[in-house]
């Protein structure tokens, strides 16, 4: 039986954590993710979970403690945002290369500077090559559902990699909305007990973790790590199917919204996808063939599947909520264009940078992007292919 509730995105994640009842949480507060450890520590203090809550002195320590605990054999997690993730940088790679299935609740916030506390994806996009699985969420329901599925993906024997469940800072993390929660028992049964094959505190079989790998081993180690990340794609689908069985809510590698027959497609990540759906419905009502592909799984990047889903689109907008400072594309634009090129498809692709530092994205802003795409198709003149949305100029 699902529970009808109204929660903010942060409350939703904290509740998923409570239902999972992990062994260890280490965290250091940073806006806008502070509420997650704040709420969860009260669950720990009230005895609603058995979790050892470790308040630490920095985000570097938060992830280091989670790494230590996970290596010791405990199911561990942390939460952070923005500069907190940046301070974890060194340890992100350590967690991934040591194949430790830690879960991280990321509440996306821009990286300084200029100093700003609001949403964009510069934090997690900067960490995209650290070897973590990355899943993005549109709203509080998705971030809850994704977190419930997180450990099943991360701990799968063919994967065993850390996982980052991302949501948009303030836009969903602080917004109270309706949500359907699963019963505690359903979540516990779905996630299951954590039973690693081996761990540092195993008295029956000793283990060395994180050894130095000279050049003769380093490439082989990385290649093996890549294989585990590639395996995550299939596992994400399997776990989603099982999750649909208990929740009635379906998830894939990405979501297609009125995309199959769309001439004009948008590829987007996070909360603005919901806003885009309203824009699409209004434009469809006007007879415009517009659609959207919303990224769920960004790492590993399901390039072949995305190229196939975009095969009918004539003009595509890739929406990047971060600036990559390479002067030609954002990270999503780069991935999508790479996927299209490899698939031998050559639609016009316009890459937009939008929503930096919490710049609001309204239905009309999304509609203006489709207006651009339609105009480009009519005039056959793409013009500047790397653009800023809602910029004063």
């Amino acid at each position, binding site marked *: 039986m699902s529970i009808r509730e*109204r929660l903010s995105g942060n409350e939703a994640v904290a509740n998923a954590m409570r239902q999972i009842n992990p062994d260890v949480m280490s965290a250091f507060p940073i806006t806008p993710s502070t509420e997650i450890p704040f709420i969860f520590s009260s669950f720990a203090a009230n005895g609603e979970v058995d979790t050892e809550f470790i308040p630490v002195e920095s985000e570097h320590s938060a992830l280091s403690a989670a790494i230590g605990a996970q290596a010791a054999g405990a199911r561990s997690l942390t939460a952070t945002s923005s500069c907190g993730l940046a301070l974890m940088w060194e340890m992100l790679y350590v967690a991934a290369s040591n194949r430790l299935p830690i879960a991280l609740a990321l509440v996306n916030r821009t990286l300084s500077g200029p100093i700003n506390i609001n949403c964009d994806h510069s934090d997690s996009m900067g960490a995209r090559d650290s070897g973590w699985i990355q899943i993005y969420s549109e709203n509080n329901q998705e971030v809850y559902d994704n977190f419930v599925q997180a450990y099943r993906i991360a701990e799968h024997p063919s994967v065993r990699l850390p996982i980052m469940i991302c949501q948009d800072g303030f836009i969903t993390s602080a917004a*109270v909305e309706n949500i359907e929660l699963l019963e505690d028992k359903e979540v516990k049964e779905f996630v299951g007990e954590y039973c690693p094959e081996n761990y540092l505190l195993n008295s029956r079989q000793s283990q060395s973790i994180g050894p130095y790998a000279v050049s003769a081993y380093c490439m082989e180690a990385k290649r093996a790590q890549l294989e585990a990340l590639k395996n995550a794609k299939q596992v994400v689908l399997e776990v989603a199917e099982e999750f649909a069985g208990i929740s009635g809510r379906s998830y894939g590698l990405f979501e297609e919204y009125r995309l199959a027959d769309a001439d004009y497609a948008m590829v987007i990540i996070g909360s603005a996808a919901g806003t885009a*759906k309203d824009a699409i*419905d209004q434009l469809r009502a006007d007879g415009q063939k517009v659609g959207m592909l919303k990224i769920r799984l960004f790492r590993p990047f399901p390039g072949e599947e995305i190229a196939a889903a975009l095969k009918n689109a004539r003009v595509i907008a890739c929406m990047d909520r971060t600036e990559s400072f390479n002067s030609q594309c954002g990270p999503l634009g780069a991935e999508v264009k790479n996927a299209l090129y490899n698939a031998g498809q050559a639609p016009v692709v316009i890459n937009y940078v939008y929503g930096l530092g919490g710049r609001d*994205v*309204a239905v009309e802003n999304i509609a203006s992007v489709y207006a651009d795409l339609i105009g480009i198709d009519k005039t056959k003149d793409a013009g500047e292919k790397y653009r800023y949305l809602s910029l004063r100029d």
Partner: protein
Amino acid sequence: MKAFFNQRSDSVKDIIQIRWHGRGGQGAKTAALLFADVVFSTGKYVQGFPEYGPERMGAPVTAYNRISDNVIRVHSNIYEPDYVIVVDETLFDSVDVTKGLSKEGAIIVNTARDKAEIIKLLKGYEGRVYTIDARKISLESLGRYHPNTPMLAAIVKVSGVMSEETFLKEMQHSFEHKFAAKPAVIKGNMKALRLTLQEVK
């Protein structure tokens, strides 16, 4: 940009949109969240969210609500609200509170002044104008100035999103949960709600 759409789809036009103007520390965000809570209890879909600027006591704060019978997907701020609530009347000098406000909608202002005086400050706003002296009500029922409780009752009354009876029942329930250890606070808050329902005009 609006002209880009020839017609609005059903998913958008059935949403009631509300904008709150207050100052940091007055509880405008809390009021928006409480409003979302109480409307949620009637079975509707709700959104309640703040717009975060500089986090300082006294700085202008904006918060929002959306209410609908259908799932709400849009995640932007609100530019064309149906209702505006002004928790602090000193904001008239610095914030264009009626910006985008529907003339079929209404504005509710926390003030001790006459409505005629307030209307003069609203830059020719043609819709309904309501006033409520939340300071007086709050001091009378709670002994302290917490404008958010009266303003919550005022928006329920003016918007008619739920019956007064249901509202009072749900709030009683919610306060009993929230202030389990302080029954006097429950009584005071309930009094503030009842007084507001009578006095908002």
